[in-house]
């Protein structure tokens, strides 16, 4: 276990924010602009990947930027869990950039330069959260992410976007200023530090009621994780263009919320303390409630993107529930599920967007027989949903397997039931879409029997992510090794 001081984390975080400058200046030459985006995305991914071997050897990178308060700095520390998340976010940014090009040009959207600019900025914020070494740094980038995604959510600049954006900011800023900020200050007042540590920072410093309150404040404060009742910003944010929903509201933003909660559970409270104080049951049952309710709501949604949004809410709480079990296997499963769900869910969103670009359809009930027109898209949709449900050959099975093992290890049988019920519900709201797309009588079919897919820039990315989620079923080791390292097994 070694730690080196290195500017790598700073470069990785800043590279996309810096790319926003050439992107904004080359607004008149779309090809050049997209070149900058793709260049920054690839560079970001390669830099993250280059850090992996050092981390896998059990080491960390550290960097202190500003000593802003006595004993408190804006600082980065790259560890196994951070790099796991960074890998997911940065690799999917490349794919999403390609997809954005197809989608935005396909629909002739306005203000594309602004769009790519803020997309790059929000990726910086995401990686900043991943590499934050203390709660203050995490909070800074968390806020920055809420704000830099606002212009993306409200991209259409119409009345619907306005109210969606309003809800988005109200929930995210309201909870972070209202809950996280005071909770952070109380934590600081009680312990004198905010740096994450493996054993947690509360050990022997607090017990009982104050811890309960703090835990709840953190759990609901990071509303990006979509734990009910602070979830309704997510469906509202679906007014955004689909690539935004795909990368941000299926992967980056929501996973940042989950990431923060996992950091709080493992790095601030510490697994042992939570188990000893029996606080883990609070987490598990709050998350379990969200899992079931969100899945039930998803069943009733006809708008495809909204259905996906509620499915995301449920899946996020899966992760929180798994980590809340505080058993080794559960935590590993939860961490890996961040990656597995990301690849599966982004595929589904890409498909929804591709359908919209090619046919203009938004509702599930209008998609009967669409498999005949867009076979590749719908095949990808099928594999994506397998992964999210947790059926072979989808990567989601592996992480779900571990989560279930975690529930057994923690001796919490009711949680097992939660997992099983919700898996059935997942299957119930996803499989009929794929089924109806391919298997319907000619009279039922709403599409002509002629293949007409979305543009290649849309089609290739979604095929790639679908393939990835299958590959992850056979080769889940990279993420597993990182998660094991993070848990310390």
């Amino acid at each position, binding site marked *: 276990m070694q730690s080196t001081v290195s500017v790598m984390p700073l470069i990785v975080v800043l590279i996309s924010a810096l790319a926003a400058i050439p992107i904004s200046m080359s607004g008149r030459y779309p090809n050049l602009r997209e070149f900058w985006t793709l260049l920054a995305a690839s560079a970001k991914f390669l830099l993250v990947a280059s850090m992996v071997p050092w981390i896998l050897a059990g080491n960390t990178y550290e960097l202190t930027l*500003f*000593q*802003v*308060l*006595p004993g408190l700095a*804006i600082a980065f520390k790259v560890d196994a869990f951070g790099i796991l998340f960074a890998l997911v976010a940065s690799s999917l940014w490349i794919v999403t950039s390609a997809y954005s090009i197809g989608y935005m040009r396909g629909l*002739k*959207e*306005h203000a594309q330069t602004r769009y790519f600019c803020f997309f790059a900025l929000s990726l910086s914020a995401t990686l900043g959260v991943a590499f934050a070494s203390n709660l*203050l740094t995490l*909070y*800074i980038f968390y*806020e*920055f992410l809420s*704000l830099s995604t606002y*212009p993306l959510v*409200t*991209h*259409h*600049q*119409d*009345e619907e*976007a*306005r109210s969606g*954006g*309003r809800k988005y*900011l109200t929930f995210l*800023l*309201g909870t972070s*200023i*209202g809950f996280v*900020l*005071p909770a952070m*200050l*109380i934590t*600081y*007042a009680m312990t004198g530090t905010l740096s994450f540590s493996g054993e947690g920072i509360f050990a022997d410093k607090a017990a009982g009621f104050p811890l309960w309150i703090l835990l709840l404040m953190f759990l609901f404060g990071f509303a990006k994780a979509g734990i009910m009742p602070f979830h309704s910003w997510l469906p509202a944010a679906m007014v955004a263009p689909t690539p935004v929903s795909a990368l941000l509201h299926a992967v980056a933003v929501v996973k940042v919320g989950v990431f923060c909660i996992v950091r709080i559970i493992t790095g601030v409270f510490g697994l042992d303390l939570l188990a000893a104080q029996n606080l883990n049951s609070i987490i598990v049952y709050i998350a379990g409630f969200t899992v079931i309710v969100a899945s039930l709501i998803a069943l009733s949604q006809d708008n495809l993107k909204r259905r996906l949004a509620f499915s995301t809410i449920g899946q996020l709480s899966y992760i929180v529930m798994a980590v809340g079990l505080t058993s080794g296997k559960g935590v590993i499963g939860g961490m890996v599920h961040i990656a597995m769900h990301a690849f599966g869910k982004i595929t589904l969103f890409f498909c929804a967007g591709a359908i919209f670009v090619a046919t203009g359809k938004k509702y599930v009930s209008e998609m009967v027989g669409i498999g005949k027109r867009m076979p590749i898209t719908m095949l990808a949709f099928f594999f994506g949903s397998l992964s999210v449900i947790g059926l072979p050959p989808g990567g989601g099975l592996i992480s779900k397997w571990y989560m279930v093992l975690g529930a057994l290890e923690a001796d919490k049988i009711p949680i097992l039931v939660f997992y099983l019920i919700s898996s059935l519900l997942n299957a119930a709201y996803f499989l009929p879409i794929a089924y109806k797309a391919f298997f319907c009588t000619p009279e039922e079919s709403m599409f002509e029997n002629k293949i007409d897919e979305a543009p290649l820039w849309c089609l290739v990315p979604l095929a790639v992510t679908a393939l990835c989620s299958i590959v992850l079923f056979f080769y889940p080791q990279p993420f597993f090794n990182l998660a094991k390292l993070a848990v310390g097994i």
Partner: protein
Amino acid sequence: MFFELFPASVVEQAPVLVVAIPLLSALVISIVGVVNQKYVLPLTILSMAGSLIASLITLQRVIEHGPISYHLGSWIPPIGIEYFVDHLNAPVLVLIAAVSFLTAIYSKDVIRSEVPDKIPSYYVIYTLLVTGLLGITITGDAFNLYVLLEVAALAAYGLIALRGGRAYMATFNYIIMGTIGAGFYLLGVGYLFIKTGSLNMLDIGQILPAIYSGNAVLVAFILVMLGMWIKMAFFPLHGWLPNAYTYAPTATSCLVAPLMTKVSVYVMIRIMFTIFSADFAFNVLKWHNIIVWWAVIAIVSGSLFALAQRNLKKMLSYIIVSEIGYMVGGIWLANRDGITGATYHIFSDAMMTLCLFMAVGCICYKAKDCSFENMRWVFRRMPVTMAAFIVGAFSMIGIPPTCGFFSKWFLLSGAIKADHWGFALALIFSSLINAVLFFRLFEIGYFGKLRESKEGQEPSHHHQPKISVKEAPLSMVVPLVVVAMSLIFLGLYTNEIVTNLIDFVIPKGLMDVGS
């Protein structure tokens, strides 16, 4: 080493130069103004720059060698007037000089459009106002402070009324309230003089502890405090402020809004900890809990009033009323973090108020009035101005790493440590209201229409109106950008500011006070 660039005599005399440069240049400007209007502004800027340099030298001397006592005319205090500069007022001097320097540059074009026929007199009064503020801050003499308080106030009345129209009535209200405030202060100083026979702050501070239990001392304290609360517009004594700041010429708002109230907060701290003591304020009186609750009311009502406004400058003015509650409450929390937060907030609030008033000034300059209507499509028309405006707004909301976050950090932590949950909740409430206030503006700027207006048809997002960039002149935009960047730097160097300056302000033995 900054002050080694200057001859020893300049360094030696720096404290008096801070005030003397603008005072004397006011005279020069009034003469030059008669001859040729062209030289008025450069002279003003030059004198502000001189004052800024002198105050920086003073600040550095204080950091390196501790407090400075400067005897005016070499008369020995307590008979003579003493200039007393320590870790509290040295940075306030720099703040005043810097703000007035930047505002002087900023005023170049906007003044020509607002009071075209009174430019020389405008800058004479401007320099006198700055003289007054610097004098209030630097002096160590309680009566001298009153004199300069009036110099500053009279100059401010003039600067506001120059705009004409509704500014006359606003100024009249301000004169009445301001005079009452100054009157209270003078009366209080009179009591102190009768009891102690001295006007020198340090001297009074040494004599008073023996007679803390006397009623006259109590009355003196109340009067002086009331006077300053009126001057700083502490709710419900704020009635004069919103109109005065709204209808003043833009450059006046930019000078007065950040400085006047903040200097009054400084004077309050000076009175509480130098003339009186933390022991008197928190242990003998035991009122701090009530006053913090009062501050809570100030914060909440200031925020709510701000929410009801439809004029940009008026909205900002009510935010000031709410921010004053932050500072008064923070001081009276009577613990280390609270006082640190309040003192730090003097600087951060001054800079972010300046930033917002400057940005709004740019928007109003282009649109000729300050209603919310003018925010339509403003992101496309004035991208640079809006970037700065966003930084200022984030600082008001308290989003890191801007300085507003860190003052809130200390204040909240003070509230938590003092177990004063009401104050903590009020701070969070006002942050959230600020978020609503500013994002409401951003919505108008971004979506191009007010929520209420039904006129016209919804622009489809594929066919938006073509709008070209039309920024305010460089003389306005450059100072604005400098101020916006300073908000971030101030935030990132919080630790340095706190350990080098504010830690020395905390009264000794505070830990056993009040708890």
